């Protein structure tokens, strides 16, 4: 096998405050797709950026070897770099939605790439731009080229961005999280586009935190944790027979039909921090010993391997989770929540139209649907934050949406909510203690030791130690914040918990923990859940019944497993078709 | 007249050229008949001639009037006018013109703020023949000659009065007079320009330049900032600068390229007037104590760098008859003041060291004008006096409000002290200051608020005779009595300190101390 297109050996990047990447090695051939996966902050983007010399002024990049098509990148000066960037290596930045200049048309951005690298005569630029857009799968390219980012949907923006990245026909395209924040259907299209590139012989470095996404088109997978590649090898091998404890946890965390009814998070523990050159995962690893904390085995750049002293093998065994189904839903029960024909439109545009739902005590109803389909609006109506234009909501048999706020206030504690962005739901000036205190006070716990005891209880309930009480939520991790939010919601002992995308901002592993927590609590407290997510896997995992929304309507609803096996509505079918699964049904 | 040539005259007269004259204030109104500001007179003296000219000795010389007779009862004045005088709009200056102007002044619709007062008990003007006018008054009115020598009783061409009567205040070409210069343009807030009147041939008797002015153009620049005036003078950007701050006088004198023209201001000195109508200053002892208890000498010297003379009389030495006897007659003497106050019963002292009488602190109210009206650092001088009197155990309060409040309190007789100077080259100014009828509430200026029979009698007598001896006698007595009664504390005689580039020659100053540019020229360097 001849020289690979890209050859990285011992790449390290430090910032004044962190070691973002440490001793990363990998290679990449033409027409090959290497996927780099790993949780947030694991160093994926920094790795990607340093391949085009844009790690930032404050970054200090070192590598034993950094070769691209026989070119020593490490030795390039600014001018030479400019020729490489966009010309031979195209980079699609992580934040697709803000990576196009909002003040210039999509066409202008693409043309810019053309002008800087190719000798396209002026009068033909427009034509080339059109071709590129077509290639990127953009419908009616003439129109789109003349439009500004804010006039384009997320998917279109991402496509335009890719078009500008491949404008000068680079040999390598780096796509950093190209599908995050996109609806599954759109996701599928983008992935297809990348597959095209690959087929045309372009090497692709695909970065994602979502195993399921990469499993579809990665030839090889490199799993990063704490700045290092902890495991890499052929995709199949990594997915089917993961060796590194972290990889295993990662894979276990992906909610899958098969995994329904069992815990997603593998047992982890809070170990002590490893040394700088120890295994970064040692802190969380159950198998970690002193050796792990002090040193890290090497990893050969080309062939598969695991960077672990205690590689595990064999199938992943998940624990059963406490049976949520144990709170069976009996027919003839008076529904806890009854939504009748509610509609809500903003400035004439319907956000929710004619939606009817009902939810029994202790039942968990999932709501899926693409962005803008009206999920949040529906949730806000149920919460009594938005009053519907038509229809009504009744709670526990009594009218709810119809009540004036004054009368609803005393009942509010029975319905609580968890939202996507927990931090935003905390007063920035209040520490955790005050957040809980306020909630408890409002639900009639008079101040004093009992209230404090109750606060501690709640924290225990969501698996946090009282140590977090004095801290400000902004100083906590995403997972911890969401736990606090849940604790606050539980403070008033609600019967219904409305969760709007509670995990979509979290890493898979953290998501797994939160999902386990929610299902656990539900079983324990007999909570009813209204669970909103765009992630079918997640919904499938937590809910008994599912309602599929599109354009403000519920197009299909039914018992979860049944619905997943045989969707009837065409939209639902499309939705499930485009759902990326970890294990391709071969 | 012999407005004395100022400073070393730079060689022989030079025709043509432009002279820039920087002044500190900008007239609110350019209508001499309306305005009461000195600056209006100062500037428009170059545009308007008067019937008579007042010379340095307080005597009167022919100007637009060849001669005049005054009836013995001083109720009618008859002027014989020159026949060759023309307004700059070509119309002739004649008896009708005089009548038109005086009548205009007397008309309430004109809202004259000073000229009307100068006309006193005006009764009317009679056109005897085209070149003779007879001005008559309801009572005998001696100061008229002096009044009629001021630009405020100057003459607009009847044509312009008819056509632009309402606009005369806004300056510019509409202000048509008979003077040596033509008011050609005015940029509010910046400058006013005057051009030579080539036909001018009626300068007052004895003027060094009998004919048209040498200068082609006179440019008057309004520079309210003293430092800016000084700066532009020293840097040669202006030729003559009005009202230099005393602080800079020395520097100007020291500068070989510059000369300093100093002239004591005529009329009433800057003095403090004591409200004898209310306690505590209704007690003469207290008044005299205050009068003797402040170290005027030192403060005036330090604050004005010896540029301003310390004053002994309410009347300026530049205005005859000045009571020389007063000089040095009431020196600073805190011991005496202390004694006087004790005698007056202000014997006890309170915690802050101020004197008290039956529990009441000895306090005098001396309202301070709004900063924008304060001239010559009088507020600072006041601070010095405040400090002196504190030593004496007298508390001086200096509340500063807006002008409305000031007028209400001071002119309403609610204050104890009031301070001002009054520029008018005529001893009759004493009438304004001390006559019982000159009530501030009615536009008078008698801030002593008492009607002292003798002062009233003498001031009336003075304005009802032209006999020099009598006038000298009464006016001298007035000055002395006012000081003896402690009704007034003369402070200083302010001086016109004008900086002048030595390239300027022939600049003269008339009775009021105002520069006259008719005979001035600029030599090219």
């Amino acid at each position, binding site marked *: 096998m001849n020289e690979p297109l890209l050859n990285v050996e011992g790449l390290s990047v430090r910032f004044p405050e962190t070691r973002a990447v440490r001793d990363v090695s990998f290679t990449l051939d033409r027409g090959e797709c290497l996927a780099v996966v790993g949780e947030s902050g694991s160093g994926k983007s920094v790795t990607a950026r340093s391949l085009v010399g844009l790690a930032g002024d404050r970054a200090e990049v070192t590598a034993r070897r950094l070769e691209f098509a026989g070119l020593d990148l490490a030795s390039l000066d600014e001018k030479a770099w400019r020729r490489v960037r966009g010309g031979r290596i195209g980079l699609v930045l992580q934040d697709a939605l803000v990576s196009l200049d909002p003040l210039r048309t999509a066409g202008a951005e693409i043309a810019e790439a053309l002008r800087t690298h190719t000798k396209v005569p002026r009068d033909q630029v427009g034509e080339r731009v059109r071709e590129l857009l077509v290639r990127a799968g953009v419908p009616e390219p003439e129109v789109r080229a003349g439009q500004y980012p804010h006039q384009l949907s997320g998917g279109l923006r991402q496509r335009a961005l890719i078009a500008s990245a491949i404008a000068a026909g680079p040999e390598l395209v780096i796509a950093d999280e190209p599908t995050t924040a996109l609806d599954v259907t759109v996701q599928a299209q983008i992935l297809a586009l990348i597959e095209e590139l690959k087929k045309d012989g372009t090497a692709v470095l695909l970065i994602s935190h979502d195993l399921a996404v990469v499993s579809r088109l990665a030839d090889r997978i490199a799993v990063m944790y704490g700045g290092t590649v902890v495991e890499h090898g052929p995709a199949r091998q990594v997915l089917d027979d993961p060796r590194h404890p972290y990889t295993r946890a990662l894979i276990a965390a992906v909610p899958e039909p098969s995994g329904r009814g069992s815990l997603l998070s593998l047992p982890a523990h809070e170990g002590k921090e490893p040394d700088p050159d120890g295994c970064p995962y040692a802190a969380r690893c159950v198998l970690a010993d002193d050796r792990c904390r002090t040193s890290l085995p090497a990893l050969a750049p080309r062939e598969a391997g695991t960077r672990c002293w205690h590689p595990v093998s064999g199938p992943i065994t998940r624990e059963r989770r406490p049976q949520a189904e144990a709170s069976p839903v009996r027919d003839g029960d008076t529904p806890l929540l009854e939504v009748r024909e509610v509609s809500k439109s903003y400035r004439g545009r319907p956000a929710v139209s004619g939606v009817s739902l009902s939810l029994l005590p202790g039942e968990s109803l999932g709501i899926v649907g693409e962005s803008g389909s009206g999920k949040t609006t529906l949730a806000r109506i149920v*919460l009594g*934050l938005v009053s519907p234009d038509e229809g009504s909501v009744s709670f526990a048999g009594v009218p709810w949406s119809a009540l004036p706020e004054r009368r609803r*206030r*005393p*009942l*509010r*504690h029975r*319905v*609580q*909510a968890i*939202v996507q*962005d927990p931090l*935003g*739901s*905390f*007063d*920035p*000036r209040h520490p955790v203690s005050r957040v809980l205190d*306020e*909630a408890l006070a*409002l*639900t009639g716990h008079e101040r004093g030791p009992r209230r404090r005891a109750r606060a501690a209880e709640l924290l225990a309930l969501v698996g946090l130690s009282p140590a977090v009480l004095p801290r400000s939520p*902004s100083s906590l991790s995403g997972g911890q914040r969401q736990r606090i939010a849940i604790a*606050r919601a539980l403070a*008033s002992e609600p019967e219904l918990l409305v969760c709007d995308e509670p995990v979509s901002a979290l890493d898979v592993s953290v998501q797994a923990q939160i999902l386990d927590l929610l299902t656990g609590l539900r079983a324990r407290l007999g909570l009813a859940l209204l669970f909103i997510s765009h992630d079918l896997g997640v919904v499938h995992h937590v809910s008994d019944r599912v309602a599929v929304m599109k354009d403000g309507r519920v197009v299909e609803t039914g018992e979860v497993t049944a619905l997943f096996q045989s969707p009837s509505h065409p939209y639902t079918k499309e939705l499930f078709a485009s759902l990326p699964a970890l294990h391709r049904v071969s | 007249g012999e407005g004395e040539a100022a400073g070393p005259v730079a060689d022989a007269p030079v025709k043509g050229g432009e002279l820039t004259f920087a002044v500190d204030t900008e007239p609110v109104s350019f209508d001499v008949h309306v305005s009461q500001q000195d600056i209006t007179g100062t500037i428009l003296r170059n545009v308007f001639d008067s019937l008579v000219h007042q010379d340095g000795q307080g005597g009167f010389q022919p100007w637009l009037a060849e001669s005049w007779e005054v009836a013995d009862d001083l109720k009618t004045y008859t002027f014989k006018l020159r026949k060759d005088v023309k307004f700059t709009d070509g119309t002739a200056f004649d008896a009708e013109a005089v009548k038109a102007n005086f009548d205009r002044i007397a008309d309430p619709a004109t809202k004259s703020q000073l000229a009307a007062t100068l006309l006193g008990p005006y009764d009317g003007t009679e056109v005897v023949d085209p070149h003779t006018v007879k001005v008559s008054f309801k009572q005998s009115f001696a100061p008229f000659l002096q009044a009629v020598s001021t630009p405020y009783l100057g003459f607009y061409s009847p044509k312009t009065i008819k056509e632009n009567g309402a606009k005369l205040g806004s300056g510019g070409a509409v202000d048509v007079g008979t003077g040596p210069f033509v008011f050609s343009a005015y940029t509010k807030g910046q400058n006013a320009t005057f051009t030579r009147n080539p036909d001018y041939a009626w300068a007052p008797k004895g003027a060094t330049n009998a004919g048209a002015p040498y200068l082609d153009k006179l440019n008057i620049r309004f520079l309210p*900032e*003293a*430092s800016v005036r*000084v*700066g532009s003078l020293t840097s040669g950007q202006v030729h003559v600068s009005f009202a230099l*701050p005393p*602080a*800079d006088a*020395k*520097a100007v004198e020291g500068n070989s390229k510059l000369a300093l023209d100093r002239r004591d201001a005529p009329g009433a000195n800057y003095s403090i007037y004591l409200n004898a109508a209310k306690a505590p200053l209704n007690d003469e002892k207290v008044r005299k104590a205050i009068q003797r208890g402040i*170290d005027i000498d*030192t*403060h005036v*010297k*330090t*604050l004005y760098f010896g540029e301003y003379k310390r004053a002994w009389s309410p009347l300026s030495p530049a205005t005859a008859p000045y009571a020389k006897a007063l000089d040095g007659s009431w020196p600073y003497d805190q011991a005496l003041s202390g004694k006087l106050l004790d005698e007056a019963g202000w014997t006890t002292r309170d915690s802050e060291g101020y004197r008290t009488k039956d529990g009441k602190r000895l306090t005098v109210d001396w309202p*301070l004008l*709004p*900063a*924008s009206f304060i001239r010559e*650092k009088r*507020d*600072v001088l*006041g*601070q*010095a006096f*405040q*400090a002196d009197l504190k030593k004496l155990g007298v508390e001086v309060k*200096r*509340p*500063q*409000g*807006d002008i*409305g*409040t000031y007028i209400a309190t001071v002119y309403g007789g609610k204050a104890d002290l009031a301070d001002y100077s009054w520029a008018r080259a005529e001893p009759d100014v004493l009438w304004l200051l001390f006559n019982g009828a000159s009530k501030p509430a009615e536009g008078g200026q008698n801030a002593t608020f008492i009607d002292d029979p003798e002062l009233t009698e003498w001031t009336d007598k003075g304005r009802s005779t032209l006999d020099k001896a009598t006038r000298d006698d009464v006016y001298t007595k007035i000055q002395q009595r006012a000081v003896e009664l402690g009704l007034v504390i003369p402070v200083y005689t302010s001086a016109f300190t004008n900086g002048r580039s030595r390239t300027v020659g022939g600049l003269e100053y008339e009775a009021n101390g105002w520069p006259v540019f008719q005979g001035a020229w600029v030599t090219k360097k």
Partner: protein
Amino acid sequence: MTTPTLPEARWKAWRPARPALLAAWTVIALIVLAAAFPGLFTGRDPLELEPAVAMRGPSPEHWFGTDQLGRDLFTRVVYGTRPSLLVGLGALTLALAAGALYGLAAALLGRFADVALMRLLDVLLALPQLLVALLALTVLGSGQVNLMIAIALSLLPAYARLVRAEALVVRRSGYLESAVLLGQHPLVQAFRHVLPNALGPLLVLGTVGFGMAVIAASGLSFLGFGAEPPSPEWGVMLSEGRDYLQTAWWLGVFPGAAITLTVVAVSVAGRSAQARFTRRTTL
């Protein structure tokens, strides 16, 4: 009608360097001390005359020289601190308090009140700050207190606007929503969450407003609306000193320096405070 950004927008700028910050706080400390206990810095009396030594330049016994009446300039500058700061602080406090209430009222009292109050504000905003102050002074007349009110009036609109904007942000915020969900009473919400969170940025901007106020005050005393002598006030001293620029530079330079130094120090401190603040909220 939209109104262009207010000058406050500028202070987002930067976080000053450590030493600068240190210097700033030292200066502030000194100023506060001087305002509280001028006696600590000088044994002299600011009003005591010494005609003998009038108009002397800086010297060992008179560090800043002496003025027209031989008063020690250093002493006067020190004693001038209190009145000078009082104008600034007074104006600022007034403006902040009034602005905060105004802004809150606009944000919370519903649509109509909002429109009405904002229109009124637009009018004030449409006028240059100095013009507003002049107008107020014309009505009230000069003097220290009126000066304060006038300046406060000219600062108020900016603050009111800011508070309103902040309050509206809070009203749409997630944490107010969760307060609603917990059934908290609107009034409680207003004082637990809206007011404190809206106030934060305001107070930081205050430090800037202080600078503006002090400069405005000195400008207005220059124009003749100043404080009452003989009480030494920097603005007044500065505007008196200007006549002696050629002959006695110190009379103007030292009060001028005092003003500038104060303003610089306070805004440096204020900016660092703001930098910290913005960091905290953007975390």
